[in-house]
């Protein structure tokens, strides 16, 4: 039985390695173009939309008194980090030329989202800040949803 275990393990290792190499090769072949496509941009916008939505939820919960001040501040900082990373990737050169308008739009929304999350930081201590952040983030969520919808194939 141990000999069978050993040869079986070897065949499985070969199969997995071939699948990984095959999938990697196919992926590389498919992404030979150096620029990202509509699908990638939609994914970036979806990520921003989620951040806006979670931010809105944080603001609502802060208004309801269900969160600590430190949680709200720290959550806003963590989300801003994610948004900053996405912002850095949203340059027209990174995407196909026909997407440049949408890329600029997404970059602008990311910049505004970053600003909104910055004001969210104070929502834990200040009810007005929480309400303003909620409204701001709701608006951004709607705009990002619209952009995401427009990018669907």
């Amino acid at each position, binding site marked *: 039985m141990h000999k069978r275990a050993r040869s079986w393990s070897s065949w499985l290792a070969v199969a997995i390695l071939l699948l990984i190499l095959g999938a990697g090769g196919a992926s590389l072949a498919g992404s030979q173009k150096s620029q990202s496509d509509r699908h990638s941009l939609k994914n970036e916008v979806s990520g921003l939309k989620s951040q806006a939505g979670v931010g809105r939820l944080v603001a609502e919960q802060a208004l309801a008194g269900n969160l600590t001040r430190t949680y709200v501040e720290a*959550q806003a900082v963590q989300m801003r980090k994610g948004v900053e990373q996405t912002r850095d990737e949203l340059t027209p050169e990174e995407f196909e030329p026909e997407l440049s308008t949408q890329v600029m739009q997404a970059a602008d929304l990311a910049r505004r989202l970053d600003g909104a999350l910055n004001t969210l930081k104070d929502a834990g201590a200040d009810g007005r800040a929480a309400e303003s952040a909620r409204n701001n983030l709701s608006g951004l969520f709607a705009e990002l949803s619209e952009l995401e919808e427009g990018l669907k194939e």
Partner: protein
Amino acid sequence: MKNWGEIFLGILTAMGGFVEVGELVFSVNSGAKFGYRLLWVVALGTVGIIAFCEMAGRVAAVKGQPVFNLIRERAGLNAGLVTLVAANLVNLLTCTAEIGGIALLWQLLSGWPYRWLALAALVFLLVAVWVLSFQWIERFFGLFGLLMCTYLAAAYYLKPDWGEVAAGFVPSVPHLGSSSEYLLYAYFVVAIFSSVLLPYETYFYASGAIEDGWTPGDVTLNRIISIVGSVLGSLLAVALVVCGAEVFRPRHLEPQLPGAAALAVSMTLGRGGLLAAIGGMFFAFAGAAIETALSGAYNLAQFLGWPWGKFRPARTAARFSLTWIITFVLAALVIMTGVDPVSVVEYSIVFSVVILPFTYFPVLVIAGDRRVMGEEHVNGWFAEAVGWFFLVAVTLAALLAVPLLIATRGGQG
């Protein structure tokens, strides 16, 4: 056979140690993306981890041999060494993700800078593992990990449609809009399966059986703990899916950060619930970090024949001790470079399932070998049938994991 108190403690620590950062993120996101349509995978994975842990625990109790001893014997040096290197790289990845998760949670409580908190997490983990005995590590992190039960309470108070929840346990593929969505569903099937069947849990469990001095008389204890502990632990995973489905799905959100998952608890249980949820996540992630670091040390020591175990003085098992210390340090250093722990989590989950068949098969073979286990303790027909079924399942998952990761662009669709 240990007394009922020990059994109860064993079950609770197994339950409290069930969830880690990858399982948390994937469970909540599976609820957010697909509602309850992936609960059958949680159930399937739970049966799989029961089978794997029960067999590995039984072999450890009867033969006193842990997983990587068996791998060296049965798979041989070459295949065994490849498995060892792969398993320990995955352990290191997972440990890294857990330390990153701890730093994120501590930031939610303190507001201090993330990198400093990663360093503080490193110091905390080093001291905890150095000072505490194996039994106290299990109990402390396992029992405090039960704070995760706040998610059970939250899931209850969110008032889901329980009929819909129950229907989610019936294996089915939902009607989706495009081929990319089907691919994403398949990716989540593999990822959820992997996050429940994490191999380091079995290395740790089997080595722990030897640390706890289990004998053939503890075979029934092993069965009870692995079955009941895993079933109760999986309820936590189900609760996370419910939270994702009830809180994030209606809002079309996919939360990426562990702290966001706690919003589901704050909505239902207020500020106290939020703090309990963060506390539960901390103990769960810290327990997982410790399990992965110790598993790496167990694997290396068992494969190469070094003295190992927390039951030995650190200087007697010096290379074993240095290995887990180095694992923690390396993991913390990676986190301090600023890498996103949630991205690390994704890769650790995917590559965990890739190596799973290599660690699972030798355990299955030995547990079913009458000459080794004896007539009394060898796999019965049911255990053999379940064991072989899961061998096919984990092999299929291993073959599909990386192609799906690539095809779905890292789970984004």
